């Protein structure tokens, strides 16, 4: 039904999305925690920075990544020298672009979840002998789990569909950075590519539906009493 080349595109897309979520989840949770619990000026600045990729044209975000993480960019040079990691024109760069683009959505979902956890419960845990970390791990973290799962699914779906920032930052290289949306775009540019585009579109829809259903089932399960 699907060609080996198409399977390769799907496999790459899933890999990029999975790494994107893995990278943005811990960072996103920390940011969401800070935004939910503090309303200082620093938090507002952080909020604006994180939200920017949501409102900017994706091409602008991609260009910013190119400037910062390109060969001559500050971040790119550092990663290349310190860790030997190259982002530009590599699938790792695609994962980074997807992570930056999905971060605002993930932060939003987790922030609401953390804010809905009564901070006074942490105080109660502290009087019962729990240190700050234990209180976090046993109270705030489990009570914000629905938000974490929601963020994972939303972030994964967003990463799978990321196009503008990805193509600007890492270009459209078959087998390296050509994810499903880039492949569809490419097929639409080629004569007689429409059938292939259709097949990948159907794959996209299927993945999205699975993600939405999974979110719904999960949130229902979370709402059930103990």
């Amino acid at each position, binding site marked *: 039904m699907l060609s080996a080349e198409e399977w390769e595109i799907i496999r790459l897309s899933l890999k990029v999305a999975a790494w994107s979520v893995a990278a943005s989840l811990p960072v996103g949770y920390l940011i969401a925690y800070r935004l939910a619990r503090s309303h200082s000026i620093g938090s507002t600045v952080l909020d604006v920075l994180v939200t920017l990729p949501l409102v900017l044209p994706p091409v602008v975000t991609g260009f910013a990544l190119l400037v910062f993480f390109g060969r001559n960019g500050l971040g790119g040079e550092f990663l290349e020298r310190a860790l030997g990691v190259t982002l530009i024109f590599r699938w790792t760069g695609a994962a980074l672009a997807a992570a930056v683009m999905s971060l605002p959505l993930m932060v939003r979902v987790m922030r609401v979840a953390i804010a809905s956890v009564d901070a006074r419960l942490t105080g109660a845990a*502290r009087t019962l*002998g729990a240190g700050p970390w234990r209180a976090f791990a*046993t109270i705030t973290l489990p009570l914000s789990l629905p938000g974490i799962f929601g963020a994972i699914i939303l972030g994964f779906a967003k990463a799978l569909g990321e196009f503008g920032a990805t193509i600007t930052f890492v270009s459209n290289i078959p087998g390296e950075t050509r994810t499903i949306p880039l492949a569809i775009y490419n097929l639409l540019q080629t004569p007689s590519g429409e059938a292939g585009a259709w097949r990948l579109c159907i794959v996209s829809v299927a993945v999205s539906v699975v993600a939405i259903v999974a979110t719904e089932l999960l949130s229902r399960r979370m709402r059930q009493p103990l």
Partner: protein
Amino acid sequence: MLKLEFQRRQGALSIDVKLALEARVTALFGPSGAGKSSILHCVAGLAQPDSGEIALDGRVLWSSAAGINLPPEQRRLGYVFQDVRLFPHLSVRANLQYGVRARHLAYDRERESAIVELLGLGALMDRAPRTLSGGEQQRVAIGRAVLTDPQLLLLDEPLASLDVARRMDVLGYMQRLRNALDIAMVYVSHDTEEVLMLADQVVCIQQGKVVAQGLPATTLAVAERSWAMQVRREGLVLRAVVAEPRNATGLTILTHPAGRLKLPGLRLDRGRNVELRVQPTDVILSRDRCESMSVRNVLPAKVIEISEIGDAQACVTLAVGPDRLESLVTREAVDDLRLHIGAEVFALVKASVVEAAPHP
């Protein structure tokens, strides 16, 4: 013994307490907004004073001078919150065991079942907190705090969020707990009945300050009277009649059944009835007539009651003719003047501070 000596400013309220609590159950009693809960928060480490020291059985919990601030988890206190704060994602059993695990205490099944029995929680163990009634939730919260084997149990108006029937129910359980366990408690309340049922000692807090302390029944009586005065901003009343309107010296002379009074600044006609409100702080007591003092208004009086306020002061109630006055004096003065019920004294009333209201 819990020793508190600290100051804390929060908004318009300035808390300044100095207390040594030794009783098994001490009630912090006072009107809402008096700072009772804030004092408890400072003891538990959920808030910090501005300056001073808090020590429990010789162990310093907080000290501005020594720079000590034990985090809440190291203070070994139990805290029962007015708003309960059970962990919603944990069963009753897991809530009860939370502190035992967090403190890495050895799991003591016997002790657990004794407390579960005492608080009547046996049938609730596997339920979720949200399925419990308000009274049941608060009983679980009390059990959760007690099971951590705290050195001191702090209870912050644990019954305030309950209706009357449930309140009596939980109060009964708390009495059982008090009688069965050997845990010192500090109980915050603004309910006289609760305090009388549970406390061995009462400390009355008003606007952040200790205004009275002692045995429950007598202390509550004094405290309530002192609030009544504070709230209405009025002292006790002397009823007098204008004998001579404002004369050349600017004074009006009034007659009272106990004697003559001179007041400045009154413009009233002869024969008018006047009510004079006198604050307890503006009445000075003397064993003799004090002819040589600047105070012009000296009335013979008889002591009819002496009640202790705080650890240094006393409120002396006087019969002045048919009227009553109160005088706030130090306990030392009570001893020096050999004041006792029935003693004949002179009440010196500072005329300038007397408020007069024409009386029909």
